[in-house]
């Protein structure tokens, strides 16, 4: 059972939240969540946090979140990573832990500070530094100093390194370009989709705000961030069309405007075994029915959701047509449209494991409140945010089924099937 959830505002990296470490992002919404749900927080059996770029000075940020949120020191906490789906992984793990009876109450979610991903020096710099520290006399020291080259100081941007596929060396955007070429997705298709994402997010701002717990920026608490900084009310197609492709400057069609934003944020959910929720007198908003993760071609990682949707539906007696809402993470316009086209393609669908080609998801059921193109994609947090947004939508609609799904760098797809519970 998903009892409730809360998230921080999602803010473009380098802006208001840039000085906040990842554990503080998650701490802030966890405290608000615990305030909101009337139960004794010492009942929490564990905390699971999804996070991709775990900070070097905080090896297991989940533990810091647990202690700083006022959970009992006996409550264990672990950090999990499945690249872009880390937050989804945390919730899937929590679901499994509850299902096998290992835990009754789990706090799970994800957090990412993309602003705080470090800049790296080449390892050769470190090696030379350590041999210098072993130098015994002046001559050796002098020789050690002269060993350094300017190239040893060439920084590598950690953020970019993280967005690179480790097998092919391609950036994630390059894989989106490949989908655009293969499925014949034009620049205009992509820009239109992106524009729509902004329009929907702006229109749904009020509903989205209900998920958000305001965040005061420590240590001075002099700024309070209450809303997402991402959706642009004034987004214009002409302006988008003027942008240069970012990944393939000459022939490409993927631009910054039709890709997800680089963002800071966190989202946390409270999950409980259903009898526990009943005995505490709580009103859950949704129930998790199943989850699935499936691998696919790393160079076409954007199509991961197709495989994951097939897998998660296979274990239920539902077909895609029965699903009332789908939250499909918008890593790139090209990738979302690619998924839609693949869902219409008989051959791709049978390869992915569908018994019958489901066809594209209706526009009025897909990402109705916008997606990562407008809101941004703090990688570790997004999976949890999708499930939270989906659960609240279904709860407000008085029930129905929904799937939260996303593509995962390295060639995977993840999906979680949930059922809304009316109040």
């Amino acid at each position: 059972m998903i009892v409730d959830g809360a998230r921080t505002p999602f803010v473009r990296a380098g802006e208001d939240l840039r000085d906040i470490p990842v554990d503080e992002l998650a701490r802030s919404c966890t405290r608000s969540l615990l305030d909101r749900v009337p139960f004794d927080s010492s009942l929490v059996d564990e905390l699971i946090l999804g996070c991709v770029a775990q900070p070097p000075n905080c090896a297991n940020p989940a533990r810091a979140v647990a202690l700083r949120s006022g959970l009992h020191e006996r409550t264990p906490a672990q950090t999990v990573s499945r690249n872009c789906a880390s937050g989804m992984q945390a919730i899937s793990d929590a679901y499994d832990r509850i299902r096998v009876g290992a835990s009754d109450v789990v706090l799970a979610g994800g957090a990412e500070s993309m602003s705080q991903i470090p800049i790296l020096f080449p390892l050769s710099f470190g090696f030379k530094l350590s041999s210098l520290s072993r130098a015994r006399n002046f001559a050796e020291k002098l020789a050690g100093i002269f060993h350094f080259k300017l190239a040893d100081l060439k920084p590598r941007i950690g953020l970019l390194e993280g967005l690179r596929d480790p097998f092919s060396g391609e950036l994630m955007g390059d894989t989106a370009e490949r989908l655009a070429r293969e499925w014949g997705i034009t620049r205009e298709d992509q820009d239109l989709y992106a524009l729509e994402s902004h329009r929907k997010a702006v229109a749904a701002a009020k509903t989205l705000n209900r998920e958000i717990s305001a965040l005061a920026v420590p240590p001075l608490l002099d700024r309070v961030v209450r809303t997402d900084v991402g959706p642009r009310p004034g987004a214009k197609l002409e302006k988008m069309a003027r942008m240069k492709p970012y990944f393939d400057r000459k022939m490409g069609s993927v631009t910054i405007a039709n890709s997800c934003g680089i963002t800071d944020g966190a989202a946390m959910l409270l999950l409980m075994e259903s009898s526990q929720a009943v005995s505490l007198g709580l009103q859950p908003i949704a129930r998790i029915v199943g989850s699935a993760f499936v691998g696919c071609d790393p160079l076409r990682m954007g199509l991961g959701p197709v495989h994951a949707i097939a897998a998660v539906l296979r274990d239920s007696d539902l077909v895609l047509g029965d699903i009332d809402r789908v939250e499909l993470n918008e890593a790139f316009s090209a990738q979302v449209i690619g998924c839609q086209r693949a869902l219409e393609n008989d051959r791709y669908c049978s390869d992915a494991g569908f018994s019958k080609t489901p066809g594209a998801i209706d526009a009025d059921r897909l990402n109705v409140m916008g997606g990562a193109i407008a809101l941004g994609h703090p990688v570790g947090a997004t999976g949890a945010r999708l499930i939270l947004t989906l659960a609240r939508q279904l709860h407000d609609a008085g029930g129905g089924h929904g799937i939260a799904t996303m593509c995962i760098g390295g060639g995977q797809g993840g999906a979680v099937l949930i059922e809304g519970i009316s109040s």
Partner: protein
Amino acid sequence: MSQWKLIRSSSWEGPIPQADPAGRWLHLVIDAESSANVLSAAVLEDLDKQLDRVSEFSNVDALIISSAKNGHFIAGADVNAIGSADNVDHVIEACRSAQDLFGRLSNLSIPSIAVIQGTCLGGGLELSLGCTARIAVQDPRTRIGLPEVNLGIIPGFGGTVRMTRLLGLRGALGWILPASRLPAQIAHRKGVVDASVPVEGFRALSLQMIEAMVSDGFRKVNAARKKRRKGWISYFLDETSVGRTIVCRQALKTVRARTLGLMPAPERAIEVARLSAHRPEKEALLEEARAVSRLATGPVCRNLVAIFQDSERVRRGVSGQPDGVWPEPRTLVVLGAGVMGSGVATMAIEKSIPTRLRDISEEAIDQGLKKIGKAIDTRRKKRRITTYQQAEILSRLSHGKELVGLERCGGVLEAVVERLDVKRSVLAEIAPLLAQDAIFATNTSALSVTAIQKDSPVADRVVGLHFFNPVPKMPLVEVIPGEFTAPEAVGIALSLARKLGKYPVIVKDSPGFLVNRLLLPYLDAASRLLLKGLSGSHIDQVARTYGLPMGPFRLMDEVGLDIGVEVQETLHCAFGDRAASSPILMKMVEKGWLGKKSGIGFYQHSGNSSTWNRDLEPMVQATASTLPATQIISSLLDPMIDEAARCLEEEVVADAGLLDLAMVMGTGYPPHLGGPLRAADAEGLPAIEERLRAAHENGAARSPCKLLVDLALINGRFHSRT
């Protein structure tokens, strides 16, 4: 039974070492009757006897002094004895014998070493200073210091002299004048103790260290002490007459700036320390004893000790008060993010209470959070907390407009606007959501708690908790049980106030409660003096010189004139003409002159500076006149004393001691005067009663109350002397 145990032992495992007739260590363990090992006359006498026995043991290597009580080494001399000292010769004699006793510790046949775990204050440190060497345990409870000047005396059991001889003049004054209580590592860094050891397994570690000290004949210890005082600057300032003069002058200047010359103890400490730096020890010790004898028998010391005793009484719980425990680790929900709300929230998160700050307005929350963030960051800048602790403190705070977190909270503190209807509607909104056993504390300064709680389904859990502004600085909290308040709720409120580091005083639910009711006649008297043509800034100056932290007009500007008028209206309705509002205040409020917050009041405020508001002159319409300072003070304070007597009559507060304490802790009334009632006692009640009667005959609405008249008649006192 002996309060000291002398045990020969070869090991040291528990608080009381295992006896071993062939052991090489001699343990002298204090286990006094008092819980904090207070050095009473009996304890000192017993120590003397035990030291006589030391020579009976042969083949022992060192005498190790420690405490059998976990968390307390020796808390100091007997405060009650200090407060009741009245004979100069007796004090000199007591000091001399303690000085000699502690001096014996370093003249035994074997070296003596104090192992300090827990509080080691005043006499406890003076005893340790008599030892050959000292080791402090890095227990968070270890606090080492000489707080005597806070009680109006100087360290008199040899502490002033021995500290100066150990650390030099500058070092010693740095310990004695600020009266600070420092942890083990800092005491080690500053050289008061020779070593510090981690708390886990400290006994074995200390033995190792003592063995090392004994085996090299304390050569390393002495070398470290010498090194600390090396260099020509040290030589100049400590060893030359010119240097010592410079140090003492500078110290005196700093002290006078703080005390305005009203406190004699720090000044005596400087004199004695200076003497100890270059005269023979014997002479210096005699001078120290003489100085203490004069200070201890003087009024300042007596008053400071009395206030200290009352504050301890309040901190521990006045007998007969309801018991209660704040339910840790539950949340405190603060409603209203204004100055008071955010102030209390700051205190709460600092004292480990998870806190939710709630307000109906987002701007108010933003402002409140900003104040909290700044207050905590200031603590970090002053190095009171580390950045890690800062993050931990801030992580206890949550905030928002939503009314959530009430079902599991430990209590609610309401600090919304001071209007009965608003407070009642907040209570009505909260009542159905509030946890079964949580209290609802209302921070009201003048509204009746009974009126707020009446007809509420949770009336029994509503209790008044009146904090003073600025919350982090003012140690007083008035705890006000309403007519329907259950004793359990009062108990929890007292516990919460103590947890926040405050001194709670229970006050009857009557208009203005205690402190504001006593302040208003004083402020009103000031306005009336102004209308007679006296200079306002002069009145403020006179009040400052008397020892008050700020003059009446500055105080009104600080509080806000509109709030002053509001409280005065309440009191006027309740008490009639003697509490009538001053016309000038009303006029100023009408003009929008509200004090500091509006930039103009009695003073014109710009930035950090302020000047007297010249535009007030047309309002006064009186020719300029002056009065002697003593008359100004008595005109200001007499009405306050009359009102205080009325409070005692009406049992607004349990006794005169608590009333004086409340005024000291809540308004900064000079503690060396012992509070308004002790000051009145000292002046003599007949004179005060006489002046009040004369003023009444001259047209003042106030006439002295029955209690004051009765006491004046028999030349009595508010505080019966014991």
